[in-house]
């Protein structure tokens, strides 16, 4: 017998009524994806965990204000993005983000020789990781989080046409990185 789980919107309705069990179910359903989204922005597992606790606490507090104009998963990612970027800004202001910057540079400067030893899939993943934060984010949102053009526009706060062109240039940059890594994909 297959179970039909309640829709996310129904869970939010129950959370608005103080239902902790619904909160548990919503958390179990979404926390890993939200965590991965935040981790890709922050490069810090502990900080990413702090952010997801905060995200779901906001859901607990603001569930009654959820208007279902977007999917719950989109709402969660939008909250997570705001919190992660706020944390990045704080760190930058406090001068604590050197390590993150260094780790990004380390990935971006991956030597060509090391890439040559990897198989095609690994190389492609290395190149994906070496993209700028802006390009990485949009590729993750479209491919991993399965967000539509409209949803990405909502989350990132940019017009839909910009979403499309940003994705195009992210992919183009990926193609260039791949070429440098010895993979000629025939595009761009």
């Amino acid at each position: 017998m297959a179970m039909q789980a309640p829709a996310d919107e129904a869970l939010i309705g129950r959370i608005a009524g103080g239902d902790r069990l619904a909160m548990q179910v919503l958390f179990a359903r979404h926390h890993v994806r939200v965590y991965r989204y935040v981790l890709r922005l922050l490069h810090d597992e502990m900080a990413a965990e702090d952010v997801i606790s905060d995200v779901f606490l906001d859901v607990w507090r603001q569930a009654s204000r959820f208007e279902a104009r977007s999917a719950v998963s989109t709402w969660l990612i939008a909250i997570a993005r705001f919190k992660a970027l706020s944390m990045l800004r704080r760190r930058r202001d406090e001068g604590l983000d050197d390590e993150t910057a260094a780790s990004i540079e380390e990935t971006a400067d991956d030597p060509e020789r090391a890439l040559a030893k990897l198989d095609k899939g690994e190389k492609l993943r290395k190149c994906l990781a070496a993209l700028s934060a802006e390009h990485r984010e949009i590729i993750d949102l479209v491919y991993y989080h399965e967000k539509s053009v409209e949803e990405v526009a909502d989350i990132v706060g940019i017009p839909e046409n910009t979403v499309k062109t940003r994705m195009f240039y992210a992919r183009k940059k990926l193609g260039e990185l791949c070429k440098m890594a010895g993979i000629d994909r025939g595009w761009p």
Partner: protein
Amino acid sequence: MTQKDAPEPGRPINEPSEIELSLPWYGAGTLRRRDRQRVEEALRDDPDLARHVDLVREELAETIHLNETLGAPSAAAADRLMAAIEAETEAARKRVPGALAGWLTGFFASLSPRTLAVAASFATLAIALQGVMIADIFTRPQNTPVLENEHHHGTFARIRFVRQANAAEITDFLQDNQATVVDGPTGGGLYRVRLGMKALAKEELHRIIARIRQDRIVEFAEVEESAP
């Protein structure tokens, strides 16, 4: 997009067509039906475009792979969240005088959660009081890791509780059985409950289910034969 417009390998593209811009969403299956049809029509006439879709699918697969290797957060994130919720609920409860609390409990019990949510002026009290009613229903056993494959690994049962069971009784029941609610309830009021992180031996499992069925708050319980 016509074949004439299609990008040739290695040729820089300055102005991508609308169809070309839509390919990532086509590959991810998140295009609206009308847009998807437009892409499919273009694909029929343009082999280069079809090859471009293959590239999109390759990127999509590797992006998923990359994200899947990022792991999952520890149980600490869930613990922190529930501790914060507990603290907020407790603080709100303390702000409610006893007699008023009793009256409001009855009043709010007669309202649906959505009605409660709409009643903005009573929202804080409603959350506090309903929070008390279902106190401690977050029942993840201590030190149980929260894993991405939480819904797949372990031994599961489907359980429906009697209508009269209150949150405290359900909490006690779950704790006594080292069980965790993973999903539900369905329309039929069934919860998916994990009985253990590992697959249990058949005899042990039947013993546990028999014990669960004896519980006065359990109306129905059965082993979930296979993970979804």
